[in-house]
């Protein structure tokens, strides 16, 4: 579908941004270009729609050399999602989505129909959002529009340049999920640039790992995880938690929490508690009040003991919390506490009594497996003995 043949890029000052790139992006696949900043991943992507020009070599789309095509026409047939603020602030959402169909001179009825269709596709109600301006939308919604715009003229190829990197983690997850869903539906050839390995693993069909203007390894996420080509790939895969060198030395409890600890309000009934445990697949719930202050913990046994009494709430059967830690506590202290008192989990509570996080044996082990691949075995054994 898209082919790079001996592509090089040398800047005027002699800097070699790309050294001999040979790549193939397969039709209908989502290929992620990933690497540390300055590795040439964005440059590589921007050559596809001629926002950048190679110094030598050829880039073919469906066998046709892009440098022989009119750049303006070429770009109208390639969707493009820019890093963060790609929406035009002076145009409504509807106009923003319609930019490419408009440039391609579709008739008005067709454009209007397409805009509504696309807004629905990215889960935004056209009636509500069509006539709003980008500044009235949240970051996540704006980037959803950015994605919709790229799909607008139904191009075969879509380029995405770190589209979700400026979003908060929750919106980012949502948009990744949506992109996967869209891709399953529409099967476009997508080239996606990111520096986030988690993102790449989550969405990619094929990962292309780059460094200093060279392709280091190409393959499916599974393959790259199982068979990293060299030490660079190995560190890059595990890099997320190693971003700051200091955190390797003494991680704090805040870094090792479970993503969404399951909490329940004190006034809830016992049947509700059981239902929630069942749904979230846990055996105990943390009880927090409306101010998010931690009140106690209730396990499935506490609930079942008293289940017959319909008027009881979780407040009546909960147990006080025996052990907790403050945010910022070094992980070794917390681990020691869990180990000594045979705790399966440990709540993190701030000075005002608010429940801010939860570490479990699972989350500790997961953290260790990411940070200390070599010594995880010995540590896991220690936990095993305690359990």
């Amino acid at each position: 579908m898209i082919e790079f043949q001996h592509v090089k890029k040398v800047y005027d000052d002699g800097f070699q941004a790309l050294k001999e790139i040979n790549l193939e992006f397969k039709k209908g696949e989502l290929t992620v270009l990933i690497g540390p900043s300055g590795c040439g991943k964005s440059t590589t992507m921007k050559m596809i729609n001629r926002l950048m020009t190679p110094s030598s070599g050829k880039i073919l789309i469906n066998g046709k050399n892009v440098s022989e095509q009119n750049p303006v026409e070429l770009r109208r047939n390639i969707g493009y999602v820019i890093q963060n603020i790609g929406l035009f602030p002076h145009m409504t959402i509807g106009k923003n989505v319609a930019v490419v169909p408009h440039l391609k001179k579709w008739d008005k009825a067709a454009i209007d129909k397409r805009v509504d269709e696309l807004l629905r596709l990215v889960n935004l109600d056209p009636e509500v959002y069509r006539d709003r301006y980008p500044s009235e939308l949240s970051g996540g919604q704006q980037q959803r529009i950015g994605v919709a715009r790229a799909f607008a003229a139904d191009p075969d190829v879509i380029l995405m340049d770190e589209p979700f990197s400026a979003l908060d983690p929750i919106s980012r997850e949502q948009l990744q999920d949506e992109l996967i869903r869209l891709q399953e539906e529409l099967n476009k050839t997508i080239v996606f640039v990111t520096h986030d390995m988690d993102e790449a693993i989550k969405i990619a069909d094929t990962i292309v790992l780059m460094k200093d203007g060279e392709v280091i390894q190409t393959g499916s996420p599974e393959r790259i995880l199982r068979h990293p080509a060299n030490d660079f790939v190995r560190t890059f895969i595990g890099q997320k938690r190693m971003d700051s060198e200091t955190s390797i030395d003494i991680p704090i409890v805040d870094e090792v929490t479970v993503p969404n600890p399951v909490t329940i309000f004190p006034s809830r009934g016992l049947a509700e508690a059981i239902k929630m445990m069942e749904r979230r697949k846990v055996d105990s719930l943390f009880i927090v009040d409306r101010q998010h202050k931690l009140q106690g913990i209730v396990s499935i046994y506490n609930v079942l003991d008293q289940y017959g009494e319909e008027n009881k709430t979780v407040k009546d059967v909960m147990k006080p919390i025996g052990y907790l830690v403050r945010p910022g506590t070094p992980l070794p202290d917390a681990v020691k506490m869990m180990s000594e008192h045979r705790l399966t989990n440990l709540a993190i509570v701030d000075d005002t009594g608010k429940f801010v996080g939860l570490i479990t044996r699972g989350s500790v082990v997961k953290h260790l497996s990411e940070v200390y691949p070599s010594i995880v075995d010995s540590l896991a054994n220690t936990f095993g003995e305690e359990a």
Partner: protein
Amino acid sequence: MGNYQWTIADLLSYMGRNSDLLWEYFVTHVIMVLAGVGLAFVIGVPLGVLCSRNEKLARSILAVTSTLQVIPSLALLVLLMLAFGLGTTTVVVGLLLYSLNPIVRNTYVGLKQVNPSYVEAGRGVGMSPMQLLFKVRFPLALTYMLTGLRIAAVIAIGVATIAPLVGGDGLGREIYSGLNGQNPLRIYAGAIPAALLAIVADLVLGALQRRLNLSERKSSRNGSKKEPSASPTV
């Protein structure tokens, strides 16, 4: 003027008696200003675009336009009179040269401050350079360009009052007649409308600028006006 006492009522009755002539002066005044500033806009905006493309060119163009503006207006008009002779042409060319600096400079600054990622997005979706200019860069530089126009208009309205010295018309004629005849009524009858014209131009262009600025960045008010059904849903 000395011992001659006059009141506002005298002024008003004078203006009422001579309303036809004053109106004619007023209209020619406005036409001269529109012609001068309009031409400056037509020439200045492309120059501003040119400046935004090339820093070296920008420096020389802006040096010329700001030098033009530093020349005292009377001196400039007299110099132009040598070339264009007595008459309205000289005045319009003078106003054009005076208005050039604020318009070129603000166009240049306005285009420069457009966030490059919008330009890249425009290029990325396949806009030609012209479409990029008219659909993205101008709209996002519009408030700056209007500031230039506003400054130019206010200056031009003032400078146009000295038009009669080089054979032009306008409210200046009434002012100079008043000066020559030592008649303060006539001076005021020319000066007050000129001042009001400048103030109104400033207010109108200022209001326009605010409205356009609003639609550019935060437009919930605009949006809900157009689409009242949209707001309650959220």
